[in-house]
């Protein structure tokens, strides 16, 4: 298969970027999208040009590192997968593919398609944890947890922190990311203890970092590679408002 790629190239955070066009030829349909970029990059290196910088690591859809906006979709045209799980058979031979970095004020571009998602770390550092010390804990079975609650907690915990939600949201809102963490811990008795404090701290940090306001479009859950539901956003709203009403 052959493709025309229009890729965003930007030297560094301070430079102005632009689209550049590349041709890739004789790509097997079983090749993954990132392998196709590997092939392009290898060609560029041989030509003495700088390869396209893009984030990726595990290539199994779990580390959350890959982050490409392909033909208008965060993580490409397929539902419920990360960029590394996109295969070229999903595109038409000869198709033009436009590849952009995440666009969000809170995710500044570092180079080409690589952005800085440190803001997500900062939100979690503000309160996305349960304050337990190592070894200061009861037996694992001391507190039974209803299977449905554990399952729902796990649904939210599947978040890989890739940033697709904020990158997709027309408001640049990080609500789905924050909600996934708050909701996951709120569903567990262990997490309930500091639930109010957590919701307030994480929302405050999210606002401080310049993410936008959620308007419930649901675009985030549509593009989330782990299909995390906006029901968790409703729970975050509940947690936050109840916490504020107690203040």
């Amino acid at each position, binding site marked *: 298969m052959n493709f025309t790629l*229009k890729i965003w190239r930007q030297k560094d955070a301070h430079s102005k*970027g632009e*689209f550049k066009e590349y041709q890739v030829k004789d790509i097997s349909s079983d090749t993954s999208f990132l392998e196709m970029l590997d092939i392009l990059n290898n060609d560029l290196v041989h030509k003495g040009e700088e390869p396209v910088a893009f984030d990726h690591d595990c290539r199994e859809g779990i580390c959350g590192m890959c982050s490409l*906006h392909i*033909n*208008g*979709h965060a993580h490409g045209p397929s*539902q419920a997968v990360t960029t590394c799980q996109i295969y070229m058979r999903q595109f038409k031979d000869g198709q033009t593919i*436009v590849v*952009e970095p995440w*666009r*969000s*004020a*809170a995710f500044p571009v570092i180079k080409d398609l690589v952005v800085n998602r440190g803001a997500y770390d900062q939100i979690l550092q503000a309160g996305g944890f349960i304050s337990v010390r190592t070894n200061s804990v009861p037996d694992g079975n001391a507190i039974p947890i209803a299977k449905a609650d554990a399952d729902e907690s796990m649904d939210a915990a599947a978040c890989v922190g890739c940033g697709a939600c904020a990158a*997709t949201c*027309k*408001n*640049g*809102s990080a609500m789905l990311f924050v909600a996934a963490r708050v909701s996951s811990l709120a569903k567990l008795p262990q997490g309930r203890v500091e639930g109010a404090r957590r919701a307030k701290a994480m*929302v*405050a940090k*999210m*606002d401080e970092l*310049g*993410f*936008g*306001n*959620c*308007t*419930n*479009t*649901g*675009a985030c*859950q*549509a*593009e989330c590679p782990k299909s995390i*539901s*906006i*029901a968790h*956003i*409703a*729970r*975050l*709203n*509940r*947690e*936050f*408002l109840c916490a*504020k*009403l107690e*203040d």
Partner: protein
Amino acid sequence: MGCFLTNSSLGRKLVMSISGCFLLLFITFHMAMNLVAIFSADAYNWICEMLGANWYALVGTAVLAGGVLVHFAYAFWLTWQNRKARGNVRYAVTVTEKGVSWASKNMLLLGVIVFLGLAMHLSHFWAKMQLVELMGGHEVVLTDGSVVAPTDGAAIIQYTFSQWYNVVLYLVWFAALWLHLTHGVWSMLQTVGWANDKWYPRLKCLSGIVATLIFGGFAIVVVWFYVQSLCGGCPCCA
């Protein structure tokens, strides 16, 4: 706690939700009241009189205006913030994501249409009714030169919707309102946290029903009076 309504994104959303809910209740009442005009001009005028120039009506009007202004001002404020959060460089290619409604992404646009419609509506009715009474006037001159009392709302309705262009403008306005509400109603519940996966289909269905009922209730009055004006002189209606 007062300040979280302004300095927190979730607080600001709560303001949108509560003010939106308040406006929804108001238009529901307004729609019900309009329907009365179909059945009895006297009954309608009696309601108008009750809501005329007295202190509780004035307070009600002020609160209502406040609600509209808050909802509107917050809408612009949030949108300004959201555009800033989105950043200066936009995507070259955008799509509508699966399952995402057009209305949900264009609430501000729809809101502006609703607001413009409201201005038109106020000039058609409020300016000829409550405002005139407040100014101490006792008669209103309509565009065709006829004169009616500001307390005779039914007559003003009858007159306004005998003009075809008003009918079209009002129907466009109601359509915008319909779209606004299809997203607004469930979004309001989502914002206060009354939603979950089981309830999304139900809430979205409820939004559709509420929006359609309100649209229908308003539209039927407009259409009724227009149709009546067309055959106003014919024997079947006489």
